[in-house]
């Protein structure tokens, strides 16, 4: 059946370069009508840039695109939308202080008047099993619900091609299944779907065809149903993957104790923490899972000291630190790395030396009566760069000049090399290529083996199952009881994450 469908969108020889990096090089592939086509590749492979060109946000340097055989050169997202291309971004283009109907209207070319639009939103969202209330403020919606807004916005324009950029990072396993049913329904109605992901099992279960990108080039096409996950992975990465080495270590005494921690979120539209409690022993890795928006940022802020609580809600090596700030907590032995590496973990316009001082000041003794020892700071920065293989012309370079993976290596290395007793990291490897991700995970495990207590908060279940000893889930600000990783199934994890928030299976009339 596949070969009989006509080609809807074809790209030929597309190249796009930015200063310092070639995002796409001579990319050629095509999508057929009604096909579910995967664009596979790891972080940094060039997938996002490719679809931005399809959506009219970016112009290719060379090459051409055709739509139903005719030349396709969208100058803006509006033109792309009029042609019939719709896109659900990985990072939602939503306005938190506006309601659902207003958000949908902004994503459409010629939206109908509000009343009519609200009625259509209600109708279409029910039809596809993704119910939405048009008058709710988007800021109050969960991440999964926000994605629904994005999808409905697209569906209301009757797209011929629906592009989805990494859609499942914000969904529980049950919600993923429902999304897939919706997508299959759309595909059977003739809408083509371009599904961008690096999650192999999902692609194998959903897609008819796959194009694999690596470092901006097409390295192959495949039929996901006929290939194994391993084959796809090796095409994606170009090498054989080895899981990190775990050294079985002794679990020592409890180094980090959190009890009955409840804090209000300082982030607008954030999630407050409610009665969070757990302990981590020396040498142990606790993995905390959860889809984005369930309190992960708040948990890191509460642990790092940016958010304060009563003294004995948080204890480091049995000393109460709950009311202390970040500098005092570092003194007590805790280091942390927030999710946002540029802007939060590191100051983008400051050099790596100054960024090293940012957190290493206390534990590396870099001040003397308030005066900064710059030579010692520089030496530390250079040590981190060397030990963690950070690719940079030097330590004097501004943080913003580094690539995502290299900056993440620096940020993690800066913390791990301070001989900490407790390590807390939020999303250690997001947006990082496989090689760097592997070395970061290895470094975390090495420190655990040396006796540190580690907390890893991550949306990547595979990563947590790989490195964690115990496992817990953050759901709407509450933490489930931590349990050992052995024997944990995906279904159990899904239920811990809260199942499918109000989604129903699509009950669109069967054709």
């Amino acid at each position, binding site marked *: 059946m596949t070969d009989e469908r006509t080609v809807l969108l074809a790209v030929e020889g597309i190249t796009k370069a930015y200063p310092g990096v070639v995002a796409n090089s001579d990319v050629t592939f095509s999508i057929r009508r009604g096909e579910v086509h995967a664009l596979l590749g790891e972080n940094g492979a060039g997938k996002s840039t490719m679809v931005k060109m399809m959506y*009219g*946000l970016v112009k290719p340097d060379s090459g051409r695109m055709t739509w139903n055989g005719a030349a396709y050169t969208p100058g803006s*997202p509006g033109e792309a939308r009029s042609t019939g291309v719709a896109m659900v971004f990985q990072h939602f*283009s939503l306005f*938190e*202080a506006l309601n659902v109907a207003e958000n949908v*209207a*902004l994503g459409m070319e010629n939206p109908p008047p509000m009343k009519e639009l609200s009625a259509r939103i209600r109708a279409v969202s029910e039809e596809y099993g993704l119910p939405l209330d048009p008058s709710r403020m988007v800021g109050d919606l969960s991440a999964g619900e926000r994605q629904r807004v994005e999808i409905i916005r697209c569906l209301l324009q009757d797209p011929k091609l629906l592009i989805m950029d990494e859609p499942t990072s914000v969904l529980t396993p049950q919600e993923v299944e429902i999304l897939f049913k919706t997508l299959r329904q759309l595909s059977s109605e003739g809408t083509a779907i371009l599904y961008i992901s690096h999650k192999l099992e999902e692609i194998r279960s959903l897609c008819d065809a796959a194009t694999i990108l690596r470092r901006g080039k097409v390295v192959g096409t495949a039929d996901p149903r006929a290939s194994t996950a391993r084959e796809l992975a090796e095409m994606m990465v170009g090498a054989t993957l080895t899981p990190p080495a775990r050294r079985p270590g002794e679990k020592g005494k409890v180094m980090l104790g959190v009890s009955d921690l409840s804090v209000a979120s300082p982030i607008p539209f954030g999630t407050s923490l409610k009665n969070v409690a757990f302990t981590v022993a020396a040498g142990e890795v606790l993995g905390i899972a959860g889809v984005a928006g369930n309190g992960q940022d708040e948990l890191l802020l509460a642990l790092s000291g940016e958010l304060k609580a009563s003294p004995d809600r948080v204890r480091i090596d049995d000393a109460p630190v709950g009311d202390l700030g970040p500098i005092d907590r570092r003194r007590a032995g805790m280091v942390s790395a927030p999710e946002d590496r540029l802007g939060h973990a590191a100051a983008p316009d400051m050099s790596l030396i100054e960024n090293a001082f940012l957190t290493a000041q206390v534990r590396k003794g870099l001040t003397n009566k308030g005066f900064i020892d710059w030579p010692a700071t520089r030496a530390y920065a250079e040590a981190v760069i060397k030990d963690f293989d950070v690719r940079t012309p030097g330590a004097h370079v501004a943080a913003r000049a580094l690539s995502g993976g290299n900056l993440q290596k620096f940020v993690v290395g800066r913390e791990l090399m301070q001989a900490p007793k407790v390590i807390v990291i939020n999303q250690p490897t997001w947006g990082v290529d496989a090689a760097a991700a592997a070395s970061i995970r290895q470094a975390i495990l090495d420190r655990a083996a040396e006796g540190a207590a580690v907390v890893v908060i991550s949306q990547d279940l595979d990563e947590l199952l790989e490195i964690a000893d115990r496992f817990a889930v953050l759901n709407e600000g509450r933490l489930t009881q931590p349990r050992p990783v052995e024997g944990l199934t995906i279904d159990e994890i899904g239920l811990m994450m809260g199942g499918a928030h109000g989604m129903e299976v699509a009950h669109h009339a069967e054709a």
Partner: protein
Amino acid sequence: MDFGGINPVILIASLMVASVPILLAALGELVTEKAGVLNLGVEGMMIMGAICGFITAVHSGSPVAGFVGGALGGAALSLVFAFVTQVLLANQVATGLALTLFGLGLSSLMGQNYNGIKPPLTGALLPGFLREIPVVGPIIFGHDWMVYLSILLVAAVWWVLKATRLGLIIRAVGESHEAAHALGYRVRLIRLGAIAFGGALAGLGGAYISLVRVPQWVDGITAGAGWIALAIVVFASWKPWRALIGAYLFGGITVLQLNLQAAGSRIPVEYLSMSPYLVTILVLVIMSSGRGRAALNAPAALGQNFHATR
């Protein structure tokens, strides 16, 4: 029916007139801020409007032309701000201050030869006999047409922001310029328009001072009105009708303290002339205390520059 030597009907009528400049300026700045831009140069734009309006009116003989000239003068100055902050990505606070200093100096320079001249007068809109009606007459019917226009503009801005696509886009740009850009909206162009609108309205307000309120040209004629307008935007929580209330409140205090001084009140003159500023501070504290930015209804992207990475 006087209280302590002050007639309340005349007080209300005169506060409506006194409030027109700050109302217009606040309304313009409200739209600018809704689009995400913090323009502290309101004082500079107002005084440019005052002198441009004055010069245009004197040379053309027509007050209407004067107001148009004032609006254009304010808008022109605001475009300099727009260029430096939106295209050259300079810090909005510093550039706004530069705008004020530059505007104050330029207006003084332009006004060198216009001291002591009287401009063509702006007439009342409605027939004189209506003004004779007790109480309601002076308050509702006796004003010049600019007073009515300013209230109309409040209604227009409220309606556009709430119910039209343009208003929705402006609000979206002020909420998240990244998302607006990703959806294909021209963030810079919209902000440029909002800034120019703010400048035009500030210029209009300034022209009102030199053409109606005083009416004359003097150096520094705006005397801090632009800053009060900025405070009114915060007081109004970026809602147009609240801006009207805020403008009347501040206008009222200014007029009241002048009346008290004239009526020989026992309160020392200095405290009276300080009162508008102290009240402004008090109001700002009340509005901003206890609640975060989201509750204040401030546009989330206010003050941040936008650079498209294509």
